[in-house]
């Protein structure tokens, strides 16, 4: 950066191990968070809030959850969509059964429900690893979606088979349902994802995160030095599913408004996995960067031909989008297999010495 960390001496372990040990970082990140809370609701128009920023935050939360499981604990999962569906349906059932319950509490409770389901589907991870596990988690994906499709109890016997977010308010402000403003939804989503990121950051640098990373790097060695695989892996599945569950509930209540199981199909699982890998495995910041990339690139690609005055047929445009998107993924993997977070880190290192690189 333009600033230097020279002269900032640490005299305690606590200050040395702080999340942002450098004072300028603390200030910049603090300002960025405040700006994120204040600026978009005031400046951004309806389209940006509703179609770009809210899904970005929701996906970031899901990516955060998957990153804990795949990036930190090393358990490849393709069941994210299923766990998000559990969160969404749990939130719907809870809030229709107990309408007076605070919606934020409902989100958290539905995360707990998703965590319980995640624990069950995490059990096979004790026996199987790698791609075998990935395929095994697909079982969760397909089974859960089928279950929500088949059992009408989950949608309160609605003939349409969809769940719809009822109007709910927090501190007198509508945040869910058709009358809620997109500003309120945005702030709610941002608050949840900010808290989620802080908790995740502290989880991964503490005892829990270290045991996850030990299991990821060499599970047998980890077991020998006293990390319990059963507890560690299941904890990873539980916490990851909690995040995914909350994100799933948000997806319906804050973004889509109403949804059927199609919103949670296998492509959602892949989408979130993309975000995690493009953003950077094992990086909290990476989850946000990945979500931003996956949300913004298709929007950019859709609008790019118009910007240069090109009018393409709709079908050709869609195909071009797919091709460019696929090509970009391969390109980014080749340029930096460790993801956007790593690119950012390299940039920071370079800027630190700039303009005197030696």
């Amino acid at each position, binding site marked *: 950066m333009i600033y230097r960390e020279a002269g900032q001496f640490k005299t305690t372990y606590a200050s040395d191990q702080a999340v942002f040990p450098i004072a300028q970082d603390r200030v910049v990140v603090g300002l960025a968070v405040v700006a994120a809370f204040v600026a978009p609701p005031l400046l951004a128009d309806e389209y940006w809030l509703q179609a770009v920023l809210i899904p970005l935050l929701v996906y970031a939360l899901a990516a955060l959850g998957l990153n804990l499981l795949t990036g930190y604990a090393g358990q490849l999962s393709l069941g994210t969509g299923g766990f998000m569906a559990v969160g969404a349906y749990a939130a719907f059932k809870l809030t229709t059964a107990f309408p007076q319950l605070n919606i934020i509490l409902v989100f958290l409770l539905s995360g707990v429900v998703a965590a319980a389901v995640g624990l069950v589907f995490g059990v096979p991870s004790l026996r199987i690893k790698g791609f*075998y596990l990935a*395929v095994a988690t697909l079982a969760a994906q397909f089974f859960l979606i*089928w279950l929500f499709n088949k059992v009408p109890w989950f949608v309160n016997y609605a003939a349409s088979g969809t769940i719809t977010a009822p109007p709910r308010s927090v501190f007198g402000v509508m945040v869910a349902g058709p009358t809620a403003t997109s500003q309120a939804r945005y702030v709610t989503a941002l608050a949840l994802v900010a808290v989620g990121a802080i908790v995740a950051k502290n989880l991964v640098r503490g005892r829990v995160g270290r045991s996850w990373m030990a299991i990821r790097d060499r599970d*047998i060695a980890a077991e020998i030095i006293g990390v319990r695989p059963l507890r560690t892996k299941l904890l990873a599945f539980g916490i990851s599913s909690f995040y995914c569950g909350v994100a799933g509930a948000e997806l319906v209540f804050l973004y889509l408004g109403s949804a059927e199981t199609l919103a949670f199909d296998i492509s959602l699982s892949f989408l979130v996995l993309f975000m995690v*890998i493009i953003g950077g495995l094992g990086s909290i910041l990476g989850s946000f960067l990945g979500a931003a990339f996956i949300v913004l690139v298709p929007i950019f690609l859709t609008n790019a031909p118009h910007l240069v005055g090109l009018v393409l047929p709709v079908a050709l445009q869609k195909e*071009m989008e797919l*091709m460019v998107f696929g090509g970009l*993924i391969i390109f980014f*993997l*080749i340029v930096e297999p460790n993801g956007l977070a790593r690119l950012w880190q390299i940039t920071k290192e370079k800027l630190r010495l700039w303009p005197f690189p030696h």
Partner: protein
Amino acid sequence: MSEIVYGVLVAPFRDMAGSPGFLAEVVIGGVFAGLLYSLVALGFVLIFKASGVFNFAQGVMVLFAALTLVGLLERGLPVVVALALTAAVMVALAFAIERIVLRPLVNQEHIILFMATIGLNFFLEGFGEMLWGANVKKLDVGIPDRSFMMGSIQVNQLELFAALTAAVLVAVLAVFFHGTRIGRALRAVADDHEAALSIGIPLKTIWVIVWSVAGIVAMVAGIMWGAKSGVQFSLSLIALKSLPVLILGGFTSVPGAIVGGLIVGVGEKLGEVYWGPLVGGAIENWFAYVVALAFLLFRPQGLFGEKIIERV
């Protein structure tokens, strides 16, 4: 309670014994579906064995091959020429993939390569549809889709033909792998990349060959599936259906892919017909996964997979 036990454990078997002809038809339908899963799984296994890449784009390669074939046929080329040209396209694709995607990513972690093949998946989907159009097409390579009676059982000519083709293909592959010089090199690479390199086996050539073979296997699967249900986007989804086959058979075993495919195909059809109604049907989507999952708990390396030995 007793009704459920009866419904799960007694009634299906009573129905099976009651009409053996129908049972045979269900089983044959399952075998056919299973063979097609096997063909897709075979493509996965070939690539995984030789390069350790879990090729998610296999399903789209099936679609791409079928689209190319249909496109060439629509331009009035004779079937044989179109087939040869499609095969050539798949080989060219293998070259391109090796050069553009695999070579820069050599030595990366498996998950990165896996991700790259998902990118490839998107790219090929868009590319194929841009070249040949996205609407559903009928593929006709001259195999009649008629049924005839064999004893008291109805057999579909197309399905019979597909079964024979799959069998021939597997036999040819077996000979290729065990009887030729290239086949021996392929097996060497599969066993140990570094050892193979050190005795002078060109890894890059081997990868191109493996991806070409996988492309041609994808073409055969595309023809069979396309002739059965038309060439359309959903063709690429059979990749997902063939994943439980991989678990059952093991990621590294060619016979495993075949046997696993048959087990999944037959099990799926039997489950859907006899047990499906108990829970409201449409269980085909996850039944195979759950069977595979249960199986994995007892044998993590699959039916024929190599035993996993781990050291610190």
